[in-house]
């Protein structure tokens, strides 16, 4: 069974440019998470979806970040415009339970470099 798939793996852009990341969770997993991992830090939650509903987006910088999960399957995270401080690894994760007590399955991440 395929794991969580993310693309692109690497992206280098100049500041003020837009960027988008795509995530396809494990089949059947209703809950999808986007995390941001800064260099030398642990992942921090940006947004959590239950099916197509964003149930926790309190940490998402809404002035420049947006996310969608239109059909409750794959998801896109967008940054527009990107800033230097957005350089990080963006991780997508999914699980098959409503509660966090289920195991999260992570993708390999999308590494963003903003110049």
């Amino acid at each position, binding site marked *: 069974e395929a*794991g*969580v798939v993310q693309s692109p793996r690497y992206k280098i852009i100049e500041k003020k440019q837009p960027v988008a990341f795509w995530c396809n969770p494990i089949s059947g997993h209703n809950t999808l998470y986007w995390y941001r991992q800064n260099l*030398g*830090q*642990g*992942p*921090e*939650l940006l947004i*959590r979806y239950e099916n197509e509903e964003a149930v*926790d987006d309190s940490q998402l910088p809404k002035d420049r970040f947006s996310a969608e999960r239109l059909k409750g399957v794959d998801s896109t995270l967008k940054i527009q415009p990107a800033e230097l401080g957005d350089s990080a690894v963006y*991780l997508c*994760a999914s699980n098959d339970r*409503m*509660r*966090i*007590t289920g*195991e*999260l*399955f*992570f*993708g*390999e*991440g999308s590494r963003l470099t903003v110049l």
Partner: protein
Amino acid sequence: AQSVTQPDIHITVSEGASLELRCNYSYGATPYLFWYVQSPGQGLQLLLKYFSGDTLVQGIKGFEAEFKRSQSSFNLRKPSVHWSDAAEYFCAVASNTDKLIFGTGTRLQVFP
């Protein structure tokens, strides 16, 4: 607020030596605790988790962790480290809002 502290940023051990990675948490109620491992270029993988019951939990790859409420700790251990264990290890606690809060990680280096 819930938080996780991993006091060791970087640990180096020889192959075959024992390992203990420290984790302290701050949480008012009984915590749900996790250890994840992140190998270079890989996603995070769950090693083990504690919800309740036996305070010594066994995980994959020969790892175990012990929950000590009195010390607010959940240290990860392995009796004999292999070179393939070199990676970054993250302790995490589940918040009361179903959010996983990660520590800053401990990078493990293994010498032959």
